[in-house]
């Protein structure tokens, strides 16, 4: 099940990669996909979108080595409630949320595709 999931994810990311070039000119051809046919940049900045999934987004890989993404969201999740590093209650600011307690839920990966791995 997890292998299938990962293959799907990679396929999706592959599709994304192909789109990066398409969106670089800032225009788009989004007229046929639904009622939202007005011009928009799918990768534009239209607000703040954050997410978090504990313990992480991956399992171990085929060589049974723990993937760096398997538990890397767990400290963010835990520390919001229980760490002494947390600001005094009432003093959490919007700027604290990323990267301490949430990650950017952007359409594209933050730093290219260096985490994509063939399996």
């Amino acid at each position, binding site marked *: 099940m997890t292998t299938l999931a990962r293959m799907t994810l990679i396929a999706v990311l592959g599709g994304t990669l192909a789109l990066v070039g398409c969106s670089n000119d800032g225009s788009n051809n989004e007229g046929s996909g639904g009622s939202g046919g007005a011009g928009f940049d799918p990768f534009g900045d239209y607000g703040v*979108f954050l997410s978090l999934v504990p313990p992480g987004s991956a399992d171990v890989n085929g060589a049974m080595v723990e993937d760096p993404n398997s538990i890397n969201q767990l400290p963010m999740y835990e520390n919001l409630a229980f760490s002494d590093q947390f600001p005094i209650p009432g003093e959490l600011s919007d700027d604290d949320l990323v990267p301490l307690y949430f990650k950017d839920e952007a359409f594209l990966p933050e730093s290219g595709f260096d985490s994509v791995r063939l399996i």
Partner: protein
Amino acid sequence: MLSVEDCVEPDMAMPGDVECPNFYEDVVNDPVTFAAATPASSGARLMSVASSVAPFGVGGVCSPDDHTDERLEADRVRALGKVEGVMLALQGNTFPAAMSNAILADGGQTELGHPIAVFGPQTGYTAPQIMMEFSQQGGGIHFRGMSFAGLPYVIIGRGVDHAFSATSSGDDMIDIRVLRLCEEGGGEATRDSTGYLYNGVCTPMLERTDEWTAETNLTTTGTPNQKVTRNILRAPDYGPVYATATVNGEPVALAIQRSSFFGEADSVKAFVLTSRREVVDPDSFFEVFNNITGTFNWLYVDSENIAYFNSGLLPIRADGIHPDLPHWGTGEFDWQQTNTGTANPDFSFDNFLPLDNHPREANPSSGYFVNWNNAQAPGFWANDGQTSYGQVYRSDMLQNRLQAFRAQDGNPLHTRASMVEAMIDAGTTDLRGEGVLPQVFDVLGDDLTDLSDFEQEVVQLMKDWVTHGPSDLGSMRRDRDGPGLDAENLVYEDHAAVAFMDAWWNHMIDAVLPQITAVEDLGAMVGGRHDAPGGGGSAFNGGYYGYVRRVLDMALGQSGAPYLQLKCADSDLPADCRAALVISLQDSIADLGPDMAQWDPTLEADEAIDHTALGLADPPNIHWQNRPTWQQVIQPTVDVLQ
């Protein structure tokens, strides 16, 4: 119905042996797929999967020397643990989410002037997470969020300029139908008859028998192969039969009718439409999510709006039918869609409650939505198994914190951070401290001189706990001074009070709700006393919280909607209620002993969250918290989809 018996491979069988069937043999008279037919069928399917994938890949390639009994037993135990992990993860995790919460504030409540949402599903803790996060870009689709592995669309997530999330709801989509049994060829009906009277005609039920071999494997305790037989009876007008009985001596069958039978996968239409950007505002959100056949609460946010929709195929029942009770399945009292007279209704949504009658709202006057699997809307009916929708619900903890923030000096407006704080504060709060204890203190009164010094000390301990937290909202089970990710070394800031609350709850129920404990003794209560914090995270989702609160309010003369029969300590006298509470206090102290420092020293470790390992990664334990397991923080600022 499932039956299991030991069997022998045909070529090894001796006379009298039960021969193992080939993997799957059907004896069917039913042209319709039984995919969703019975609760038993899902278990049966699991069994068949378990037997078909043996042996598990544990230990790699073994030399013959490895096959010692100890080694086999160790492998078996390990494989069993893995299967149990999968079973645990599956329990209660229906599509898409078991429990979940959501808070949304409209633009008038926020510093930026745009709505904020902090929401997500609570589906338990597994490693790897059963919710797969992915981003879909291309072909006109721009969406990111989560789904369960294998599903092709994001089911909860964000689009270009908006986002949505879901919580499980409690609508009443299931009825029990009582079928009058008959013999098709005439003759006297018995409880073994497989015909039922529908509109006066003796109609055959659909019968199906499946047989297969559950092969021995590492998870079975050395038993031989087993022949599994599954018998299914289904009334085509209603659903699967699960029991027979007699009514006034006449034989009847009991069938389960659920509005979404065979329509489960139809929900995918909604996700196709969201991916195609058909959701652009609250009205289109309502229309698209009315395609969801299951009972869920959906929450939507864009740069200008927040909205709520309660989805599901909600039956329109015949006049005079009480939705909580079984009723006749004779054709006379059918839901509207079966009045078409077709044996297999096409689940046209027109036959169910129309969109305009679904609980839904956009931009409420309060400025907020909170949802934590609470009741859908005031006065809206819940399913027969839901007994805890009432005066106290866990969504109160979210609402109280959102409002307390705004009520501070200067009426500060919400930021994403303040909403996150409201969520995590509520996620580490004990609902009993917030929803019940203040009334307990009121009944006990200010004059506690009849109590011992230590009893008075304990009452004060609990009073301090209830207000020890942000905005004087306390009752917290947390340690903000802790070392972070290190479940071994953490003591809640109010450890003794938390331990006492846990000890007090059962004694309190025993003392103030003797009428209910009498029903418990008969095994007739629906729902449990307490949804305790623990390894699964989600807690306080159903319990006696509302019952206790209301009888206390009645004793205080403060209840706006008193029970007709239920009373505190089964008495009209407030003094009896107080005496019962004092007894429960004393019993709890007797349980815990005179030294507060020694109260329940393993409390924090016992309720730590331990991820269920589905794979090979084994994350460290984390502290209990009552929080979505995939969570979004959203504040759209531009409306680009029209």
